[in-house]
């Protein structure tokens, strides 16, 4: 699983930091490093940018996986520098931001936007693969998710905007339903699509309210 991130515009970051003059930066050694949004290089660049606008960077670290509980120990290793800061700027996915916030009383700000759970199709090129809808339809759709890969999330696609294998929203976006049809055809299972897929239950998604689960032992 890869959390694909993009950096927020620097103006937005500056606005979030506001009057906070002393900043500690946390980077991520996993997904954000891979995305070139929160690795060592990006953290150092952010440090430079912040300093050029008059902020003081009291310290920085790149935590190998800021989304796990070892983050607590990592942060303890630089207590003094963090203490000297009035806020932390986290260059990780939203999961990392929230984990860091669990282990500090200081204000925590995100430097990145978490875009999606991505699949790498070519080096450095990702597409969204899963909506985490809580009710997987991949068994009906040849392993291609229409909920995230079709712009309209159609369960009985394709719509009238599918042309030459591309989606109407962008010539760079493949039509998910063309992909599904091609693959089912190859597998001799196109008749699967002759049946109407019924209305789905969205209560398993965020529409049902914040989700929680307990792993059975």
């Amino acid at each position, binding site marked *: 699983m890869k959390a694909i991130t993009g950096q927020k515009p620097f103006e937005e970051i500056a606005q979030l930091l506001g009057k906070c003059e002393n900043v500690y930066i946390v980077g991520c050694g996993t997904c954000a490093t891979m995305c070139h949004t929160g690795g060592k290089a990006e953290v150092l660049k952010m440090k430079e940018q912040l300093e050029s606008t008059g902020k003081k960077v009291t310290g920085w670290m790149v935590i190998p996986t800021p989304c796990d509980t070892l983050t607590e120990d990592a942060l303890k290793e630089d207590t003094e520098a963090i203490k000297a800061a009035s806020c932390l700027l986290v260059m990780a996915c939203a999961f990392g931001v929230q984990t860091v916030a669990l282990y500090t009383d200081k204000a925590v700000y995100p430097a990145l936007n978490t875009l999606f759970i991505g699949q790498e199709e070519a080096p450095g090129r990702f597409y969204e693969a899963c909506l985490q809808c809580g009710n997987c339809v991949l068994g009906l759709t040849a392993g291609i998710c229409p909920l995230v890969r079709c*712009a*309209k*999330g*159609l*369960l*009985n*696609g*394709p*719509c*009238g*905007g*599918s*042309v*030459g*294998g591309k989606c*109407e*929203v962008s010539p760079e976006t493949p*039509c998910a339903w*063309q992909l599904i*049809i*091609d693959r089912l055809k190859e597998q001799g299972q*196109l008749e699967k*699509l*002759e049946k*109407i*897929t*019924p*209305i789905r239950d*969205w209560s398993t998604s965020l529409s049902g309210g914040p989700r929680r689960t307990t792993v059975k032992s």
Partner: protein
Amino acid sequence: MKAGSNLEKVLESGRFAVTAEAGPPKGTSAAVVQKKAETLRNACDAVNITDNQTAIVRMCSLAGCVIVKQQGVEPVMQMVVRDRNRIAIQSDVLGAIALGIRNILCLTGDHQKFGNHPSARGVYDIDSIQLIQTLKRMRDEKKFINGEDISGEVPLFIGAAENPFADPFEFRVIRLAKKIEAGADFIQTQAVYDVPKFKRWMEMVTERGLDKKTHILAGIIPIRAVGMARYMRDNVPGISLPNELVTRMEQATSGKEEGLKIALETIEQMKEIPGVHGIHIMAVGWEDIVPTLVERVKLLPRPVL
């Protein structure tokens, strides 16, 4: 009769139907809708009122339909799944029926990205085929999606759209079959310019006997100018507009005359294709041309049933 609407009567009597489209204004004036209804009154059997077409905010289709109906013109309420979840959809259907609307056209809707609020959240709680299914269940079983009972009658004549020119070509007929199975009583197609391709599609439709299970109305968009022809050829997803028509428009002394001629020729050809039960004219912003068009293809006067 499922709904007893004029459109249903015309189609069920085996006559060649004519419907036309009218877009509500980006404002509050009922007079704009009334004027369009007056223009189209005697030229068609029902008028489609669009539902925020191309994702641009306009007066709602339901209000447009009521205004048209007050003028004594029969509306077809277009309904997209882009902007409403199942709660709003079913609620709007109940209200529409209470206000005398009998024809509803079920659509996915153009993606919000193309409209004037591209940062809007798209809803797509259900898709267009599931919308057809929902309306059929509401009508035939008098049940909501959740299985609860609806009080009162639910007379509905259910429409759907299909685009024979989108891809994958062979799958378009399967998808049409799904829409019919879901409950589509009539189909209005995307605009036809590529007549040979449309004929091939209709052959596949009739081979499966689908023309016996629903009424197919071929879409017609009269071209006003060469720029419009080029724009539709190059920029409108899912429209197949052959180069030769663009050339004809380029060489014509009057774009409007040539566009009218192309539309007339297309309609004449539609009348000859087995399984086509009517035409649906979408004269976007050129409603004035509709009476002329319908008259010149000898489809006037419209039947009074």
